[in-house]
Protein backbone atom coordinates (compact mmCIF):
# COMPACT_ATOMS: atom_id res chain seq x y z
CA UNK A 1 0.00 0.00 0.00
CA UNK A 2 1.34 3.44 -0.90
CA UNK A 3 0.69 6.63 1.01
CA UNK A 4 1.30 10.31 0.32
CA UNK A 5 1.03 13.09 2.89
CA UNK A 6 0.43 16.71 1.93
CA UNK A 7 1.43 19.39 4.42
CA UNK A 8 -0.94 22.34 4.08
CA UNK A 9 -4.53 22.16 2.89
CA UNK A 10 -4.81 25.51 1.15
CA UNK A 11 -5.25 25.96 -2.60
CA UNK A 12 -1.98 24.21 -3.59
CA UNK A 13 -2.36 21.51 -0.94
CA UNK A 14 -5.94 20.64 -1.91
CA UNK A 15 -4.98 20.35 -5.58
CA UNK A 16 -1.91 18.26 -4.69
CA UNK A 17 -4.14 15.99 -2.59
CA UNK A 18 -6.53 15.49 -5.52
CA UNK A 19 -3.67 14.58 -7.85
CA UNK A 20 -1.92 12.28 -5.39
CA UNK A 21 -5.18 10.37 -4.87
CA UNK A 22 -4.76 9.19 -8.48
CA UNK A 23 -1.33 7.73 -7.74
CA UNK A 24 -1.35 6.60 -4.07
CA UNK A 25 -3.64 4.20 -2.21
CA UNK A 26 -3.95 6.59 0.70
CA UNK A 27 -3.59 10.38 0.83
CA UNK A 28 -3.67 12.48 3.98
CA UNK A 29 -3.79 16.28 3.90
CA UNK A 30 -2.54 17.93 7.11
CA UNK A 31 -4.01 21.35 7.80
CA UNK A 32 -3.25 23.43 10.86
CA UNK A 33 -6.38 25.51 10.45
CA UNK A 34 -10.08 24.65 10.52
CA UNK A 35 -11.93 25.25 7.27
CA UNK A 36 -14.75 27.78 7.34
CA UNK A 37 -18.16 26.28 6.60
CA UNK A 38 -18.90 28.80 3.84
CA UNK A 39 -17.03 30.78 1.20
CA UNK A 40 -15.25 32.91 3.76
CA UNK A 41 -11.70 33.96 4.49
CA UNK A 42 -9.70 31.52 6.59
CA UNK A 43 -8.13 32.57 9.88
CA UNK A 44 -4.71 31.17 9.02
CA UNK A 45 -4.62 32.84 5.62
CA UNK A 46 -4.26 36.58 6.23
CA UNK A 47 -4.00 37.35 2.52
CA UNK A 48 -7.40 35.78 1.83
CA UNK A 49 -9.06 39.16 2.45
CA UNK A 50 -7.14 40.57 -0.49
CA UNK A 51 -7.63 40.31 -4.22
CA UNK A 52 -7.03 36.84 -5.72
CA UNK A 53 -7.51 36.30 -9.40
CA UNK A 54 -6.80 33.20 -11.42
CA UNK A 55 -5.00 34.09 -14.62
CA UNK A 56 -5.73 32.21 -17.83
CA UNK A 57 -2.85 29.72 -17.62
CA UNK A 58 -3.81 28.77 -14.08
CA UNK A 59 -7.52 28.62 -14.89
CA UNK A 60 -6.84 26.20 -17.74
CA UNK A 61 -4.70 24.03 -15.47
CA UNK A 62 -7.35 24.07 -12.74
CA UNK A 63 -10.02 23.00 -15.23
CA UNK A 64 -7.83 20.17 -16.47
CA UNK A 65 -7.09 19.02 -12.93
CA UNK A 66 -10.68 19.24 -11.73
CA UNK A 67 -13.01 19.44 -14.74
CA UNK A 68 -16.09 21.55 -14.13
CA UNK A 69 -14.47 23.77 -11.50
CA UNK A 70 -14.68 26.93 -13.61
CA UNK A 71 -18.36 26.31 -14.32
CA UNK A 72 -18.93 25.83 -10.59
CA UNK A 73 -17.16 29.11 -9.87
CA UNK A 74 -19.19 30.99 -12.49
CA UNK A 75 -22.40 29.46 -11.09
CA UNK A 76 -21.45 30.91 -7.71
CA UNK A 77 -20.82 34.37 -9.13
CA UNK A 78 -17.18 34.45 -10.24
CA UNK A 79 -16.45 36.79 -13.16
CA UNK A 80 -14.54 36.17 -16.38
CA UNK A 81 -12.75 39.19 -17.81
CA UNK A 82 -10.71 39.14 -21.02
CA UNK A 83 -7.45 41.08 -21.05
CA UNK A 84 -7.73 43.70 -22.26
CA UNK A 85 -11.08 42.89 -23.93
CA UNK A 86 -13.09 43.31 -20.73
CA UNK A 87 -10.65 45.41 -18.75
CA UNK A 88 -10.28 49.17 -18.59
CA UNK A 89 -6.55 49.54 -18.20
CA UNK A 90 -4.51 52.71 -17.90
CA UNK A 91 -1.05 51.54 -18.94
CA UNK A 92 2.21 53.46 -18.76
CA UNK A 93 1.46 55.32 -22.01
CA UNK A 94 -2.33 55.63 -21.81
CA UNK A 95 -5.61 53.74 -21.98
CA UNK A 96 -5.77 50.33 -23.65
CA UNK A 97 -8.24 49.60 -26.40
CA UNK A 98 -10.46 46.53 -26.18
CA UNK A 99 -8.49 43.76 -27.89
CA UNK A 100 -8.96 40.02 -27.97
CA UNK A 101 -5.66 38.41 -27.03
CA UNK A 102 -6.83 35.06 -25.67
CA UNK A 103 -5.70 36.18 -22.20
CA UNK A 104 -8.20 36.50 -19.36
CA UNK A 105 -8.61 36.36 -15.61
CA UNK A 106 -11.22 34.89 -13.30
CA UNK A 107 -12.15 36.97 -10.33
CA UNK A 108 -13.92 35.96 -7.12
CA UNK A 109 -13.12 36.01 -3.41
CA UNK A 110 -10.38 33.72 -2.19
CA UNK A 111 -12.90 32.21 0.21
CA UNK A 112 -15.21 31.14 -2.63
CA UNK A 113 -12.37 29.80 -4.74
CA UNK A 114 -10.97 27.76 -1.87
CA UNK A 115 -14.35 26.36 -0.94
CA UNK A 116 -15.22 25.29 -4.49
CA UNK A 117 -11.78 23.75 -5.00
CA UNK A 118 -11.87 21.96 -1.63
CA UNK A 119 -15.28 20.47 -2.35
CA UNK A 120 -14.05 19.06 -5.64
CA UNK A 121 -10.49 18.14 -4.64
CA UNK A 122 -10.68 16.54 -1.24
CA UNK A 123 -13.36 13.90 -1.83
CA UNK A 124 -10.90 11.02 -2.15
CA UNK A 125 -8.42 12.08 0.53
CA UNK A 126 -8.38 12.16 4.32
CA UNK A 127 -8.20 15.73 5.60
CA UNK A 128 -6.81 16.22 9.09
CA UNK A 129 -7.87 19.76 9.92
CA UNK A 130 -6.67 21.31 13.17
CA UNK A 131 -3.49 19.24 12.95
CA UNK A 132 -0.06 20.77 13.31
CA UNK A 133 2.91 19.44 11.34
CA UNK A 134 5.88 19.20 13.71
CA UNK A 135 8.58 18.00 11.34
CA UNK A 136 9.74 15.42 8.86
CA UNK A 137 10.72 11.88 9.86
CA UNK A 138 13.53 9.88 8.26
CA UNK A 139 17.21 10.47 7.63
CA UNK A 140 19.53 12.19 5.18
CA UNK A 141 18.75 9.59 2.52
CA UNK A 142 14.99 9.34 2.76
CA UNK A 143 11.99 11.10 4.26
CA UNK A 144 9.79 8.32 5.56
CA UNK A 145 6.94 10.34 7.02
CA UNK A 146 5.88 13.31 9.08
CA UNK A 147 5.42 14.02 12.74
CA UNK A 148 2.10 15.70 13.54
CA UNK A 149 -0.02 16.62 16.52
CA UNK A 150 -3.79 16.63 16.41
CA UNK A 151 -5.59 19.03 18.74
CA UNK A 152 -5.32 17.86 22.33
CA UNK A 153 -3.42 14.71 21.36
CA UNK A 154 0.18 13.54 21.68
CA UNK A 155 2.53 13.80 18.68
CA UNK A 156 2.26 10.92 16.23
CA UNK A 157 4.10 9.80 13.12
CA UNK A 158 2.44 9.18 9.77
CA UNK A 159 4.55 7.06 7.44
CA UNK A 160 4.56 8.09 3.79
CA UNK A 161 6.20 7.21 0.49
CA UNK A 162 6.02 10.84 -0.54
CA UNK A 163 5.65 14.00 1.53
CA UNK A 164 4.52 17.11 -0.34
CA UNK A 165 5.13 20.47 1.29
CA UNK A 166 2.35 22.90 0.34
CA UNK A 167 2.65 25.15 3.39
CA UNK A 168 3.35 28.28 1.38
CA UNK A 169 5.63 31.27 1.89
CA UNK A 170 6.33 30.48 5.52
CA UNK A 171 7.33 26.84 4.91
CA UNK A 172 9.52 25.29 7.63
CA UNK A 173 10.69 22.51 5.30
CA UNK A 174 14.27 23.87 4.91
CA UNK A 175 14.79 23.63 8.68
CA UNK A 176 13.09 20.23 8.93
CA UNK A 177 15.21 18.83 6.09
CA UNK A 178 18.37 20.19 7.75
CA UNK A 179 17.37 18.40 10.98
CA UNK A 180 17.41 15.13 9.01
CA UNK A 181 20.89 15.89 7.65
CA UNK A 182 19.76 17.33 4.32
CA UNK A 183 21.86 20.03 2.66
CA UNK A 184 21.15 23.69 3.20
CA UNK A 185 18.61 25.08 0.76
CA UNK A 186 19.63 28.18 -1.10
CA UNK A 187 17.03 30.88 -0.69
CA UNK A 188 16.73 34.17 -2.56
CA UNK A 189 14.52 37.06 -1.50
CA UNK A 190 14.06 40.10 -3.72
CA UNK A 191 12.07 42.89 -2.16
CA UNK A 192 9.38 44.38 -4.35
CA UNK A 193 9.14 47.45 -2.13
CA UNK A 194 5.39 47.27 -2.68
CA UNK A 195 2.62 47.66 -0.13
CA UNK A 196 -1.08 47.48 -0.70
CA UNK A 197 -4.37 48.15 1.00
CA UNK A 198 -7.64 46.47 0.15
CA UNK A 199 -11.30 47.11 0.74
CA UNK A 200 -14.41 45.26 -0.39
CA UNK A 201 -17.49 47.20 -1.56
CA UNK A 202 -21.08 46.44 -2.41
CA UNK A 203 -21.42 47.68 -5.97
CA UNK A 204 -24.26 49.96 -7.07
CA UNK A 205 -26.89 47.73 -8.70
CA UNK A 206 -26.52 49.18 -12.21
CA UNK A 207 -22.81 48.34 -12.31
CA UNK A 208 -22.56 45.19 -10.21
CA UNK A 209 -22.24 42.61 -12.97
CA UNK A 210 -21.35 44.87 -15.86
CA UNK A 211 -18.20 46.53 -14.74
CA UNK A 212 -14.95 45.76 -16.53
CA UNK A 213 -11.90 44.88 -14.47
CA UNK A 214 -10.14 48.20 -13.87
CA UNK A 215 -6.40 48.65 -13.54
CA UNK A 216 -4.55 51.92 -13.11
CA UNK A 217 -0.85 51.30 -13.54
CA UNK A 218 1.67 53.56 -11.81
CA UNK A 219 2.86 56.62 -13.68
CA UNK A 220 6.32 55.79 -15.03
CA UNK A 221 8.69 58.06 -13.16
CA UNK A 222 12.18 57.12 -12.03
CA UNK A 223 13.01 57.87 -8.44
CA UNK A 224 9.38 58.43 -7.45
CA UNK A 225 7.12 55.87 -5.78
CA UNK A 226 4.80 54.03 -8.17
CA UNK A 227 1.16 54.19 -7.15
CA UNK A 228 -1.74 52.35 -8.75
CA UNK A 229 -5.08 50.66 -8.21
CA UNK A 230 -7.17 47.69 -9.30
CA UNK A 231 -10.89 47.09 -9.06
CA UNK A 232 -12.18 43.59 -9.71
CA UNK A 233 -15.79 42.45 -9.56
CA UNK A 234 -16.31 39.41 -7.31
CA UNK A 235 -19.37 37.32 -6.41
CA UNK A 236 -22.52 38.72 -4.80
CA UNK A 237 -22.35 42.07 -6.57
CA UNK A 238 -19.21 43.11 -4.76
CA UNK A 239 -15.99 44.78 -5.84
CA UNK A 240 -12.57 44.32 -4.37
CA UNK A 241 -10.44 47.45 -4.60
CA UNK A 242 -6.68 47.34 -4.09
CA UNK A 243 -4.47 50.39 -3.88
CA UNK A 244 -0.74 49.81 -4.35
CA UNK A 245 2.30 51.91 -3.67
CA UNK A 246 6.04 51.41 -3.59
CA UNK A 247 8.38 52.57 -0.81
CA UNK A 248 7.65 56.12 0.25
CA UNK A 249 4.25 56.03 -1.41
CA UNK A 250 2.45 53.26 0.47
CA UNK A 251 -1.34 53.42 0.47
CA UNK A 252 -2.81 54.30 3.86
CA UNK A 253 -5.23 52.01 5.69
CA UNK A 254 -7.36 54.76 7.23
CA UNK A 255 -10.66 55.88 5.75
CA UNK A 256 -9.66 59.38 4.65
CA UNK A 257 -6.17 58.42 3.52
CA UNK A 258 -7.48 55.52 1.44
CA UNK A 259 -9.98 57.75 -0.39
CA UNK A 260 -7.44 60.56 -0.91
CA UNK A 261 -4.84 58.13 -2.25
CA UNK A 262 -7.32 56.75 -4.82
CA UNK A 263 -8.22 60.29 -5.91
CA UNK A 264 -4.57 61.28 -6.31
CA UNK A 265 -3.85 58.56 -8.88
CA UNK A 266 -3.37 59.25 -12.60
CA UNK A 267 -7.12 58.97 -13.06
CA UNK A 268 -9.80 59.25 -10.36
CA UNK A 269 -12.20 56.67 -11.84
CA UNK A 270 -11.49 54.14 -9.07
CA UNK A 271 -12.03 56.87 -6.46
CA UNK A 272 -15.32 57.80 -8.14
CA UNK A 273 -16.47 54.17 -8.20
CA UNK A 274 -15.47 53.73 -4.54
CA UNK A 275 -17.53 56.81 -3.66
CA UNK A 276 -20.54 55.35 -5.48
CA UNK A 277 -20.29 51.98 -3.72
CA UNK A 278 -20.93 50.88 -0.13
CA UNK A 279 -17.88 49.78 1.88
CA UNK A 280 -18.17 46.30 3.43
CA UNK A 281 -15.80 46.08 6.37
CA UNK A 282 -12.55 47.87 6.94
CA UNK A 283 -9.41 48.60 4.96
CA UNK A 284 -6.78 45.91 5.22
CA UNK A 285 -3.09 46.62 4.61
CA UNK A 286 -0.66 43.99 3.32
CA UNK A 287 3.11 44.20 3.26
CA UNK A 288 4.48 40.66 2.74
CA UNK A 289 5.13 41.20 -0.95
CA UNK A 290 8.75 40.21 -1.47
CA UNK A 291 9.65 37.67 -4.17
CA UNK A 292 11.05 34.57 -2.49
CA UNK A 293 12.47 31.43 -4.05
CA UNK A 294 13.78 28.30 -2.38
CA UNK A 295 16.03 26.28 -4.66
CA UNK A 296 15.07 22.80 -3.41
CA UNK A 297 16.11 21.40 -6.79
CA UNK A 298 19.74 22.49 -6.31
CA UNK A 299 20.28 20.86 -2.91
CA UNK A 300 21.16 17.26 -2.15
CA UNK A 301 18.03 16.28 -0.25
CA UNK A 302 16.48 13.07 1.02
CA UNK A 303 14.24 11.05 -1.29
CA UNK A 304 10.51 11.04 -0.68
CA UNK A 305 10.08 14.83 -0.41
CA UNK A 306 8.92 17.55 -2.77
CA UNK A 307 7.65 21.11 -2.23
CA UNK A 308 5.04 22.82 -4.36
CA UNK A 309 3.46 26.25 -4.82
CA UNK A 310 4.48 29.25 -2.72
CA UNK A 311 6.82 27.05 -0.64
CA UNK A 312 9.05 26.94 -3.74
CA UNK A 313 8.44 30.25 -5.50
CA UNK A 314 6.30 33.03 -4.05
CA UNK A 315 6.26 36.16 -6.17
CA UNK A 316 4.94 39.60 -5.32
CA UNK A 317 1.14 39.07 -5.14
CA UNK A 318 0.57 42.05 -7.42
CA UNK A 319 1.41 39.73 -10.33
CA UNK A 320 -1.56 37.47 -9.43
CA UNK A 321 0.50 34.37 -10.19
CA UNK A 322 0.47 32.45 -6.91
CA UNK A 323 -2.60 30.28 -7.34
CA UNK A 324 -2.05 29.87 -11.05
CA UNK A 325 1.53 28.66 -10.64
CA UNK A 326 0.24 26.26 -7.97
CA UNK A 327 -2.35 24.87 -10.42
CA UNK A 328 0.19 24.58 -13.24
CA UNK A 329 2.68 22.91 -10.89
CA UNK A 330 0.10 20.40 -9.68
CA UNK A 331 -0.77 19.53 -13.25
CA UNK A 332 2.93 18.93 -13.87
CA UNK A 333 3.14 16.84 -10.69
CA UNK A 334 0.32 14.67 -12.05
CA UNK A 335 2.18 14.15 -15.32
CA UNK A 336 5.46 13.36 -13.57
CA UNK A 337 3.77 10.85 -11.24
CA UNK A 338 2.02 9.21 -14.21
CA UNK A 339 5.40 8.85 -15.87
CA UNK A 340 7.46 7.81 -12.86
CA UNK A 341 4.97 6.33 -10.42
CA UNK A 342 4.90 7.19 -6.71
CA UNK A 343 8.55 6.34 -6.28
CA UNK A 344 10.38 8.09 -3.41
CA UNK A 345 13.59 7.89 -5.45
CA UNK A 346 12.02 10.06 -8.16
CA UNK A 347 11.86 13.04 -5.76
CA UNK A 348 14.82 14.91 -7.36
CA UNK A 349 13.04 14.83 -10.73
CA UNK A 350 9.82 16.02 -9.10
CA UNK A 351 11.68 18.88 -7.39
CA UNK A 352 13.28 19.89 -10.69
CA UNK A 353 9.88 19.80 -12.41
CA UNK A 354 8.28 22.02 -9.74
CA UNK A 355 11.10 24.55 -10.10
CA UNK A 356 10.81 24.54 -13.89
CA UNK A 357 7.07 25.15 -13.72
CA UNK A 358 7.55 28.27 -11.57
CA UNK A 359 10.47 29.62 -13.61
CA UNK A 360 8.66 31.96 -15.99
CA UNK A 361 6.62 33.58 -13.21
CA UNK A 362 9.80 34.07 -11.18
CA UNK A 363 11.66 35.64 -14.09
CA UNK A 364 8.77 37.94 -14.90
CA UNK A 365 8.47 39.14 -11.31
CA UNK A 366 12.19 39.73 -11.00
CA UNK A 367 12.38 41.61 -14.29
CA UNK A 368 9.85 44.03 -12.86
CA UNK A 369 10.88 44.17 -9.22
CA UNK A 370 14.65 43.72 -9.22
CA UNK A 371 15.18 47.01 -11.07
CA UNK A 372 17.97 47.92 -13.43
CA UNK A 373 20.83 47.11 -11.01
CA UNK A 374 23.54 45.17 -12.78
CA UNK A 375 22.13 45.88 -16.23
CA UNK A 376 23.91 48.24 -18.57
CA UNK A 377 22.30 51.55 -19.46
CA UNK A 378 19.95 51.23 -22.45
CA UNK A 379 21.14 52.84 -25.67
CA UNK A 380 19.17 55.64 -27.31
CA UNK A 381 17.98 53.15 -29.96
CA UNK A 382 16.78 50.71 -27.29
CA UNK A 383 14.99 53.45 -25.37
CA UNK A 384 13.28 54.61 -28.55
CA UNK A 385 12.10 51.09 -29.43
CA UNK A 386 10.89 50.43 -25.87
CA UNK A 387 9.01 53.74 -25.78
CA UNK A 388 7.35 52.90 -29.09
CA UNK A 389 6.48 49.42 -27.78
CA UNK A 390 4.88 50.89 -24.67
CA UNK A 391 2.73 53.15 -26.83
CA UNK A 392 1.92 50.55 -29.53
CA UNK A 393 0.98 47.99 -26.86
CA UNK A 394 -2.21 49.97 -26.23
CA UNK A 395 -3.65 49.22 -29.66
CA UNK A 396 -1.59 46.55 -31.42
CA UNK A 397 -3.26 43.10 -31.27
CA UNK A 398 0.10 41.38 -31.80
CA UNK A 399 1.96 43.25 -29.05
CA UNK A 400 -0.96 43.10 -26.64
CA UNK A 401 -1.31 39.34 -27.20
CA UNK A 402 2.38 38.81 -26.49
CA UNK A 403 2.21 40.93 -23.35
CA UNK A 404 -1.04 39.68 -21.83
CA UNK A 405 -0.44 36.03 -22.70
CA UNK A 406 2.89 36.15 -20.87
CA UNK A 407 1.34 37.97 -17.92
CA UNK A 408 -1.40 35.34 -17.63
CA UNK A 409 1.02 32.40 -17.97
CA UNK A 410 -0.33 31.27 -21.34
CA UNK A 411 2.09 29.84 -23.88
CA UNK A 412 3.21 32.30 -26.55
CA UNK A 413 1.42 32.03 -29.88
CA UNK A 414 3.33 29.57 -32.07
CA UNK A 415 3.62 31.85 -35.09
CA UNK A 416 4.58 35.40 -34.20
CA UNK A 417 3.81 38.03 -36.80
CA UNK A 418 7.09 39.95 -36.74
CA UNK A 419 6.27 42.22 -39.71
CA UNK A 420 2.99 43.24 -38.01
CA UNK A 421 4.95 44.17 -34.88
CA UNK A 422 7.40 46.14 -37.01
CA UNK A 423 4.50 48.02 -38.62
CA UNK A 424 3.05 48.75 -35.17
CA UNK A 425 6.41 50.06 -33.98
CA UNK A 426 7.40 52.08 -37.01
CA UNK A 427 4.05 53.38 -38.27
CA UNK A 428 2.10 56.33 -37.00
CA UNK A 429 0.73 55.20 -33.62
CA UNK A 430 -3.03 55.06 -33.12
CA UNK A 431 -4.19 58.19 -31.29
CA UNK A 432 -4.31 57.88 -27.53
CA UNK A 433 -7.80 57.41 -26.12
CA UNK A 434 -9.15 60.14 -23.90
CA UNK A 435 -10.67 58.97 -20.65
CA UNK A 436 -14.12 59.50 -22.17
CA UNK A 437 -13.25 57.35 -25.19
CA UNK A 438 -11.76 54.65 -23.00
CA UNK A 439 -14.84 54.57 -20.75
CA UNK A 440 -17.18 54.62 -23.77
CA UNK A 441 -15.83 51.18 -24.69
CA UNK A 442 -17.94 49.84 -21.79
CA UNK A 443 -21.61 50.87 -22.18
CA UNK A 444 -22.79 50.30 -18.60
CA UNK A 445 -19.79 52.04 -17.13
CA UNK A 446 -20.18 54.85 -19.64
CA UNK A 447 -23.85 55.37 -18.73
CA UNK A 448 -22.90 55.69 -15.05
CA UNK A 449 -19.95 57.94 -15.86
CA UNK A 450 -22.11 60.19 -18.05
CA UNK A 451 -24.70 60.50 -15.30
CA UNK A 452 -21.96 61.48 -12.87
CA UNK A 453 -20.73 64.08 -15.36
CA UNK A 454 -24.23 65.59 -15.56
CA UNK A 455 -24.50 65.71 -11.77
CA UNK A 456 -21.23 67.63 -11.75
CA UNK A 457 -22.58 70.18 -14.19
CA UNK A 458 -20.78 68.82 -17.23
CA UNK A 459 -17.36 68.49 -15.65
CA UNK A 460 -16.05 65.09 -16.62
CA UNK A 461 -15.21 63.19 -13.46
CA UNK A 462 -12.11 61.55 -14.80
CA UNK A 463 -10.64 64.19 -17.01
CA UNK A 464 -7.58 65.65 -15.37
Amino acid at each position, binding site marked *: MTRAVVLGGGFAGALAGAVLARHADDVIVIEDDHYPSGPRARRGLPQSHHSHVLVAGGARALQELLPGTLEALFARGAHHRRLPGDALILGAAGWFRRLDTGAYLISCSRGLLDQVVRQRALGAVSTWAGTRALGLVGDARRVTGVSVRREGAAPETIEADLVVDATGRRSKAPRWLAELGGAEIEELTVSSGLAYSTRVYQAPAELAGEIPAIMLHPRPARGRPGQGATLFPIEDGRWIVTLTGTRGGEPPADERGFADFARSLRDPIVADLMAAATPLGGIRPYRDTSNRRRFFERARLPAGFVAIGDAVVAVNPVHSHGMSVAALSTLRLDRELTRRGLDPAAAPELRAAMAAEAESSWRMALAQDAGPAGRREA*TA*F*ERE*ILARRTRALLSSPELAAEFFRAQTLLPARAAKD*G*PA*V*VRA*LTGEPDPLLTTREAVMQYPALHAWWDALTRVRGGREPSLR
Partner: protein
Amino acid sequence: MSLQISDSVIWQETAGGISLYHAETGDFHTLNETGSRIWELVASDGEREPIVAKLSHEFAGDNLAMSVRVLKDVQEFLGSMIERGLIEEHPA
Protein backbone atom coordinates in the same frame (compact mmCIF):
# COMPACT_ATOMS: atom_id res chain seq x y z
CA MET B 1 21.17 33.52 -53.78
CA SER B 2 19.68 36.84 -52.74
CA LEU B 3 19.97 38.22 -49.24
CA GLN B 4 17.31 40.29 -47.60
CA ILE B 5 16.96 41.92 -44.21
CA SER B 6 14.07 40.26 -42.42
CA ASP B 7 10.75 42.11 -42.36
CA SER B 8 10.77 41.46 -38.60
CA VAL B 9 13.82 43.65 -38.03
CA ILE B 10 14.02 47.35 -37.23
CA TRP B 11 17.49 48.81 -37.66
CA GLN B 12 19.23 52.12 -37.43
CA GLU B 13 22.71 53.49 -38.03
CA THR B 14 24.09 54.86 -34.79
CA ALA B 15 27.43 56.28 -33.73
CA GLY B 16 28.42 52.89 -32.31
CA GLY B 17 27.46 50.88 -35.41
CA ILE B 18 24.21 49.42 -36.71
CA SER B 19 21.63 48.77 -33.97
CA LEU B 20 19.04 46.07 -34.59
CA TYR B 21 15.78 45.04 -32.98
CA HIS B 22 14.18 41.69 -33.80
CA ALA B 23 10.42 42.12 -33.38
CA GLU B 24 9.72 38.39 -32.98
CA THR B 25 12.29 37.64 -30.30
CA GLY B 26 12.46 41.09 -28.71
CA ASP B 27 16.28 40.92 -28.87
CA PHE B 28 18.52 43.91 -29.48
CA HIS B 29 21.90 43.62 -31.28
CA THR B 30 24.63 46.10 -32.07
CA LEU B 31 27.03 45.33 -34.93
CA ASN B 32 30.69 46.30 -34.91
CA GLU B 33 32.24 48.31 -37.74
CA THR B 34 32.79 45.35 -40.07
CA GLY B 35 29.40 43.83 -39.31
CA SER B 36 27.78 47.20 -39.93
CA ARG B 37 29.50 47.47 -43.33
CA ILE B 38 28.29 43.99 -44.34
CA TRP B 39 24.78 44.87 -43.15
CA GLU B 40 24.78 48.04 -45.27
CA LEU B 41 25.83 46.02 -48.31
CA VAL B 42 23.07 43.47 -47.70
CA ALA B 43 20.63 46.39 -47.57
CA SER B 44 21.96 47.95 -50.79
CA ASP B 45 23.19 45.01 -52.91
CA GLY B 46 21.25 42.02 -51.60
CA GLU B 47 23.52 39.44 -53.25
CA ARG B 48 26.22 37.36 -51.58
CA GLU B 49 28.83 37.50 -54.33
CA PRO B 50 28.94 41.29 -54.89
CA ILE B 51 29.12 41.82 -51.14
CA VAL B 52 32.13 39.52 -50.83
CA ALA B 53 33.76 41.15 -53.87
CA LYS B 54 33.31 44.68 -52.52
CA LEU B 55 34.56 43.81 -49.06
CA SER B 56 37.48 41.87 -50.46
CA HIS B 57 38.45 44.90 -52.52
CA GLU B 58 38.04 47.24 -49.53
CA PHE B 59 39.91 45.17 -46.96
CA ALA B 60 42.26 42.88 -48.90
CA GLY B 61 43.21 44.68 -52.07
CA ASP B 62 45.31 42.21 -54.09
CA ASN B 63 46.33 40.17 -51.07
CA LEU B 64 45.02 36.65 -51.80
CA ALA B 65 45.44 35.33 -48.26
CA MET B 66 43.56 38.34 -46.93
CA SER B 67 40.80 37.81 -49.51
CA VAL B 68 40.33 34.25 -48.28
CA ARG B 69 40.07 35.56 -44.73
CA VAL B 70 37.51 38.20 -45.75
CA LEU B 71 35.45 35.56 -47.56
CA LYS B 72 35.48 33.33 -44.49
CA ASP B 73 34.52 36.16 -42.12
CA VAL B 74 31.69 37.36 -44.36
CA GLN B 75 30.27 33.85 -44.74
CA GLU B 76 30.44 33.34 -40.96
CA PHE B 77 28.75 36.64 -40.25
CA LEU B 78 25.97 36.05 -42.78
CA GLY B 79 25.48 32.49 -41.46
CA SER B 80 25.06 33.83 -37.93
CA MET B 81 22.63 36.56 -39.05
CA ILE B 82 20.56 34.04 -41.05
CA GLU B 83 20.51 31.63 -38.11
CA ARG B 84 19.14 34.38 -35.85
CA GLY B 85 16.46 35.29 -38.36
CA LEU B 86 17.86 38.78 -38.90
CA ILE B 87 18.73 38.18 -42.56
CA GLU B 88 16.91 35.85 -44.95
CA GLU B 89 18.38 34.12 -47.98
CA HIS B 90 16.24 33.24 -50.98
CA PRO B 91 16.95 31.72 -54.39
CA ALA B 92 17.61 34.58 -56.79
